[in-house]
């Protein structure tokens, strides 16, 4: 089964463009955060953020998508939680504000 998967390189980070096959997870938090912010600001109304927590696996999985591109990040480290919390706060602050 063929499926094109482009690795788009822009500036210092890259993300995988979804084209119908399995999506990969972004390797580092910094990469994810930067790419996520960028994707969200392109069109805040199109993007949705989802977060899945499984306690018995101790795993937190994040996804930010505008139904064209998709960014995913997975973590089991407790230290990442603070970063995720900060990220969600910023996201919510922007979503519920008057900013475009």
């Amino acid at each position: 089964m063929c499926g094109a998967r482009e690795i788009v390189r822009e500036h210092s980070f890259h993300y995988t463009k979804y084209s119908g096959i399995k999506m990969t997870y972004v390797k580092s938090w910094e990469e994810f955060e930067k790419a996520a912010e960028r994707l969200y600001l392109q069109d805040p109304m199109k993007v949705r953020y989802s977060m899945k927590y499984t306690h018995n696996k101790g795993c937190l999985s994040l996804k930010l998508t505008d139904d064209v591109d998709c960014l995913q990040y997975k973590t089991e480290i407790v230290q990442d939680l603070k970063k995720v919390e900060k990220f969600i706060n910023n996201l919510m602050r922007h979503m519920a504000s008057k900013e475009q």
Partner: protein
Amino acid sequence: SQFLSELTRMFRRARSHGSVVLTMKRYDGRTKPAPREGRKPLPEPSEYMCLIRATLRTQKISTVVSCADRRLCI
């Protein structure tokens, strides 16, 4: 706040098995669908809000956070 207490209960229930999925999306407050061509378009949204949904197995809860509420939420 009712959402938050229910959400906490959800997380507690999910401790043994299952996962809680939390979703956030921007909401512009529109309750009507976009009108067809030639008709009056919907007015520009004056205020944006944040729609939050939480799912555990088959249970779904949601809430809308506006600018004023978000201080309580965060």
